[in-house]
């Protein structure tokens, strides 16, 4: 196989500009050659950055309104779907119910943690979230939650981390954290046997509410605890600043 490496064609393949026969030849080689496949990955990373160098142009101001007026209605939430029984009083956002009802209609790639994120985001504060958690809804059996407590300096802060059963993905929602200036950020730490891995950085809105989508190389369920610290903007390789939230799985 080594004599037939397609290395000279890989950049063009990544750009998707090969003639059909050449593209076919490259594709079948890639399926069998891991070194060329790695080469392709590196060029795809170049290609994905190229659109950022399109010369800046401003769309006309009317375009957004025009777009929004054309949105076709989605079929996901029809009136015929009976909302799940909810043991909470009708709140200002009754569309939670339709959201819950719609979960099964989402593609399987949408794990429950992301669906729960939607609920939490729409709940807009943790108090409402706690009430959702107490609901006896079938989907609640398929996710794991970790409560995070505010540290003594910020006792009013709280957070919850939600992940799917396998821990493939999760979301963090926080409430009651102070807004940071631009030189700082909040950073989530995934802790396992004392070793800390960054789970991402996030900011909070003026109400102290923030959220973070977490993806992890290893399942989130393998970590034993989670913490949030204040770090310089962009985040740190390891925690350096004040701890504001923490909790154990």
């Amino acid at each position, binding site marked *: 196989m080594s004599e037939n490496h397609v290395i*000279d064609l890989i*950049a*063009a393949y990544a*750009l*998707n*500009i*090969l*003639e059909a026969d050449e593209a076919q030849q490259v594709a079948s080689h890639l399926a069998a050659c891991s070194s060329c496949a*790695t080469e392709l990955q*590196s*060029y795809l*990373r*170049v*290609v*994905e*950055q*190229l*659109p*950022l*160098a*399109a*010369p*800046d*142009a*401003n*769309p*006309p101001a009317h*375009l*957004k309104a*025009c*777009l*929004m007026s*054309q*949105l*076709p*209605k*989605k079929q*996901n*939430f029809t009136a015929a779907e009976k909302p799940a029984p909810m043991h909470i009083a009708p709140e200002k956002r009754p569309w939670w119910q339709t959201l819950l009802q*719609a979960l099964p209609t*989402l593609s399987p*790639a*949408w794990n429950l943690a*992301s*669906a729960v*994120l*939607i609920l939490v*985001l*729409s709940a*807009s504060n943790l108090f409402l979230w706690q009430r959702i958690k107490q609901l006896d809804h079938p989907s609640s059996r398929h996710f794991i939650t970790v409560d995070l407590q505010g540290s003594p300096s910020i006792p009013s802060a709280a957070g919850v981390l939600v992940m799917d059963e396998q821990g493939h*993905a999760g979301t963090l929602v926080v409430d009651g954290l102070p807004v940071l200036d*631009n030189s700082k*950020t909040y950073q989530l730490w995934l802790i396992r046997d004392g070793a800390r891995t960054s789970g991402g950085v996030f*900011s*909070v*809105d003026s109400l102290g509410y923030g*959220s*973070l*989508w977490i*993806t992890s190389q290893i399942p989130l369920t393998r970590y034993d605890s989670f913490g949030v610290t204040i770090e310089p903007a962009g985040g740190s390789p390891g925690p350096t600043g004040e701890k504001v939230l923490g909790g154990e799985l």
Partner: protein
Amino acid sequence: MNYSTYDDYSLIHLVALAEEKALGALYDRYGKLVYSIALNSVGDAGLAEEITQDVFLRIWEKASTYQPEHGKVLTWITSITRHRAIDMLRRRSARPETVQPGWAVEEEGADDPPEMAAPENVEDLVDLAQQQQRVRKALAQLPQDQQKALAMAFFQGYSHSELALALGEPLGTVKTRIRLGMQKLRALLEIEA
């Protein structure tokens, strides 16, 4: 509800759940970029508007199929845009020969990230501005002929042989130009082979 502080993933999730304002927030964040890519490809403001609308309508329809593990939201959106623009050129079965797509290049030493509009999700946008500057600086270091061939290939979908014809150069020369340009970009962007 103000979605401007939500990260891209959350917005896409909300769009999948038919939340129109979340699509509006995505448009506020990336509409300009989408339009810029489209305009650079087709060279016509009316067509670029049409493509921009198509792209966001497609996001509206397809958000539930988006898979975070396959790449960033930004990459998904720009890739839809590029393909949509190239499709449009192909459907019209004639490329605008007078339209020469280009690159926004930044010379070394320019270090103010592009100005951002409105309060928005800080991480995503700081990230975007930095990436934008990095790739523009990298492109600035390529010879003009490589820049030009790459722009035609990337924004207009020219194949090797179409490039050779349009540029009046031998096929081998064109192939080499694309390959060297991409190699150099990869090195400048510090992507490991």
